């Protein structure tokens, strides 16, 4: 590895000349067969063109460039077949004879630079612009030149984790596929493993659309998956998610899990990748994960023990179940096993006179103090004081703590505050 201080206006050819000087030092004249034509400087999946400046190639401070010796055959990386990768929103010239299509204009370069965002968890703890790099699928190295990508569809596919074709220039590696990887643009790279998660629903607000919640025009923004996509600025999105978490109001979507819906309630307006909840910050993101895991567990038929809280799955349809710690209880009312079938509790007036109810240990005391499964979704519900009208935070079912059925006028008049 060679460290060099180079002004940004340096051209690729000048850089190669400098490199040759240091590489050839101490070699015999016979060995000095290298010349600028045999060298390729590889960066972000491209062999850089001789007449471009490093600035034009979007090379920033502390960037690692890879130098490779050109291959003998016609597919040398310095060969003028490189075309600018077709990134969303940027058009390219397809003419092979034009040499200035590697990097288009400065404005386009600037927009390329920040067209993709991610959440930097390692260093910045913030939403930051993402740098795109290609790593060889075989050796993991970055000395890889990708074939020109001309279809937007292909780009979508690559962003989704699809492979890109090309040539690995690392010695002894014959890799022909590479993966797109993402690095934080806001902090100095700490090497090849310093990567981040690309968040596709965070985008530049090119049309200056106002945030659905605060009305301000900001960029970048969160875009929901509805059509046309409704947007929210990052600070509103952060507060929105924190509120959804506090109120347990995430939307459950099969295949996605617990997620956030567009504030306009659009049926197709969702956050499709839960990694966007990274914006909650480390502590709240952990809470979100716990919440989502519990939700998933309950959805897949899991139960929590009414005595010790242990989670377990019992796929039988029996009334009674036993937790891994040996606590037997009724799944319908959460009570430790009563005799016979559970008949959900009768109203308290009848409770007083019902022999059976008393035998069953459904005493007023236990009714008031234990956790009960929600009659709608079986989530364990703890009554935090207050009235007998309980709302399940998970499925929104409103039920009577005493009757364990739908809340109704009857319950209001008989035992609302019992």
């Amino acid at each position, binding site marked *: 590895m060679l460290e060099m201080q180079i002004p940004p206006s340096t051209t690729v050819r000048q850089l190669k000349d400098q490199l040759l000087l240091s590489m050839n030092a101490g070699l015999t004249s016979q060995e000095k067969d290298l010349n600028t034509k045999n060298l390729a400087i590889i960066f972000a999946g491209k062999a850089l063109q001789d007449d471009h400046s490093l600035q034009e190639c979007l090379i920033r401070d502390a960037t690692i460039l890879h130098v490779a010796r050109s291959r003998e055959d016609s597919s040398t990386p310095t060969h003028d077949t490189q075309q600018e990768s077709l990134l969303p929103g940027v058009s390219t010239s397809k003419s092979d004879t034009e040499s200035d299509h590697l990097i288009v204009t400065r404005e386009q370069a600037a927009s390329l630079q920040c067209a993709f965002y991610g959440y930097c968890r390692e260093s910045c703890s913030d939403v930051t612009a993402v740098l795109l790099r290609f790593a060889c699928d075989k050796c993991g190295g970055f000395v890889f030149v990708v074939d020109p990508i001309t279809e937007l569809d292909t780009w979508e596919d690559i962003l989704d984790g699809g492979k890109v074709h090309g040539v690995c220039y690392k010695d002894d590696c014959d890799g022909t596929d590479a993966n797109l990887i993402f690095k934080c643009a806001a902090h100095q790279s700490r090497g090849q493993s310093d990567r981040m998660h690309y968040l596709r629903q965070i985008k530049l607000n090119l049309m200056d659309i106002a945030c*659905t919640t*605060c009305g301000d025009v900001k960029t970048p923004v969160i875009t929901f998956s509805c059509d046309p996509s409704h947007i929210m600025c990052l600070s509103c999105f952060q507060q929105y998610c924190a509120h959804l978490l506090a109120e347990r109001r995430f939307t459950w979507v099969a295949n996605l899990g617990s997620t956030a819906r567009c*504030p306009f*309630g659009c049926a197709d307006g969702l956050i499709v990748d839960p990694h966007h909840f990274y914006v909650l910050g480390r502590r709240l993101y952990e809470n979100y994960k716990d919440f989502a895991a519990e939700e998933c567990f309950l959805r897949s038929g899991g139960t929590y023990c009414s005595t010790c809280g242990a989670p377990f799955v019992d796929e039988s349809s029996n009334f009674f179940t036993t937790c891994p710690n040996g606590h037997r209880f009724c799944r319908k009312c959460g009570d430790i096993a009563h005799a016979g079938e559970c008949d959900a509790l009768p109203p308290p007036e009848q409770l007083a006179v019902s022999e059976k109810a008393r035998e069953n240990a459904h005493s007023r005391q236990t009714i008031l103090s234990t956790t009960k499964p929600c009659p709608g979704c079986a989530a364990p519900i703890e009554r935090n004081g207050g009235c007998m009208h309980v709302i399940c935070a998970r499925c929104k079912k409103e039920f009577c703590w005493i009757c364990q059925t739908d809340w109704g006028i009857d319950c*209001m008049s008989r035992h609302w505050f019992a």
Partner: protein
Amino acid sequence: MAAPFPVSCARRIQKELTALHAEPVPGVTLKSGPDTLADKSTDINMIIKGAEGTIYNGEEFNLRFRMNERYPFESPEVVFQPPNIPLHPHIYSNGHICLSILGNDWSPALTISAVCLSIVSMLSSCKEKKRPPDDQFYIRTASMNPKATRWMYHDDNV
């Protein structure tokens, strides 16, 4: 002393009031806004006029919005104020309104305007002046704040 409103929350309310002024909801006028948005809780009072051709024709009602510092992520508290509480199957005689967008169906994309529109249309579509069936019981037991009530939403189309 109460903590001041977060700036973002105050700005949002300010924007809504400006928009409400520029584009008023038919039949609704702003009576008084908050003196300052620096208080923890802020009251906005609206006057709703019963529209022509409806059973509330010629009547006037006072509606109070109260926002806390979690607005707009949390719904506003919206209550009719005495002396004249509309006689309506979803409006209790203490002024509390049974309307799903004020509770479970609230979204931060909703606004004071949107709530006013819903309430106006709720009044306009009503065919018979009467209180909710559980009115007497509710007003004896309900808290001052309608948001402390866990509502069973009646059919919104009545």
